[in-house]
């Protein structure tokens, strides 16, 4: 307010109903201010006088609508691409840690083989693994083994044929941690994870030393790599 009257800006806001209540109340009772608002109304009417609209030619209108449709389709295409890309990224994020863990386990197994191979440990551990089943149900037979043959311990077994790298597990081996019917590096990995979680089952005690620890993981890893490479001795 200046000199008890609203400013030009406040009056302009009063013209459009945007002014505060005090200004609007003042304007209701002040003839001078209403006159100024009327002037502002004349200016607005004069400057805002609508010109005759420019008709958009039919072909230009069609071109604009076509552009709108094309651009909308382009937006959808780009969003689909983004979704596919982020889906691939999510899959990769899920797979990569597992692949990395499996690689580490494989590398660890290979390292173990190379170290134990030098010291003659290989034969001893293999024999231990093969002899490990304390329950009679878990016995290992090398393929191709005649189904009629009785289960044999590996120490008594004839040398495995190099063409039969896979181990068929009859019953459940104590080394088959994940219970998929095979002893492989995944079993070593699963046992390692369960060690990290602090909840290893006593049945995975591979070396029968009364506890489940890293040496049991090592034994499974070694057995898996050794047997799969045809090295069951």
């Amino acid at each position, binding site marked *: 307010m200046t000199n008890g009257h609203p*400013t*030009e*800006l406040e*009056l*302009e*806001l009063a013209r*459009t109903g*945007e002014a505060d209540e005090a200004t609007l109340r003042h304007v209701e009772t002040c003839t001078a201010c209403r006159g*100024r608002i009327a*002037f*502002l109304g*004349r*200016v*607005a009417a*004069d*400057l*805002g*006088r609508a*010109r005759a*609209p*420019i008709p*958009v*030619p039919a072909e*230009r209108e069609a*071109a*604009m*609508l076509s*552009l*709108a*449709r094309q*651009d*909308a*389709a*382009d*937006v*959808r*295409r*780009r*969003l689909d691409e983004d979704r596919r890309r982020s889906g691939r990224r999510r899959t990769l994020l899920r797979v990569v840690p597992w692949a990395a863990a499996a690689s580490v386990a494989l590398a660890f197994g290979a390292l173990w083989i190379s170290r134990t191979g030098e010291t003659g440990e290989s034969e001893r551990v293999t024999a231990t693994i093969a002899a490990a089943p304390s329950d009679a149900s878990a016995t290992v037979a090398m393929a191709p083994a005649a189904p009629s043959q009785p289960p044999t311990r590996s120490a008594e077994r004839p040398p495995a044929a190099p063409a039969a790298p896979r181990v068929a597990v009859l019953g459940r081996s104590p080394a088959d941690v994940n219970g998929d019917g095979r002893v492989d590096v995944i079993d070593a990995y699963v046992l390692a994870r369960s060690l990290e979680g602090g909840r290893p089952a006593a049945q995975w005690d591979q070396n029968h030393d009364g506890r489940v620890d890293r040496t049991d993981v090592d034994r499974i890893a070694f057995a898996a790599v050794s047997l799969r490479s045809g090295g069951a001795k």
Partner: protein
Amino acid sequence: MTPEPRDESELVARANQGDTAAFEELYRRHRDWVVSLAWRFTGSRDDALDVMQETFAYLFGRFPGFELSSTLRAFLYPVVKHTSVSLARKRRRVVSLDAAERAQADAALESAWQPDEAAEFEALISALAEGHREVLRLRFALGMQLEEIADALDLPLGTVKSRLHNALKALKEAADGADS
């Protein structure tokens, strides 16, 4: 069939999802306003239609990911203005070698609004500074609110209020002077 969105921000949200109807609705809603504004800037019907086409091509190109911070008119105003000025610059065939003349011509292009000769107050407004004139035109000719003007001109709201206040004061004094 999806319901017709009424709210501008909802329209923009749907256009961000690639909704064809939202694109068409945005065009239909603002087409006449854009053409009319472009006509005021260019003074030519054909040029106004070209500006309209370029303006919407620019707007559509902002999707997806377009965020509306104010009204769409506040977003479109500088686009229409700059497109009009660029077109006028292209149309200008003779370019002066004199720097001062070139600057003067460029300044004339920047305040490209074509005065309405028939308007009673046009002469009074033309005497004002360009900054005041533009705020006054956005307010009176385009009926924009103060916040919308601030967004359209990328100015603080306080600056817009101050310019409008001074412009109205100057206009009142000029009108009083003309009457006496």
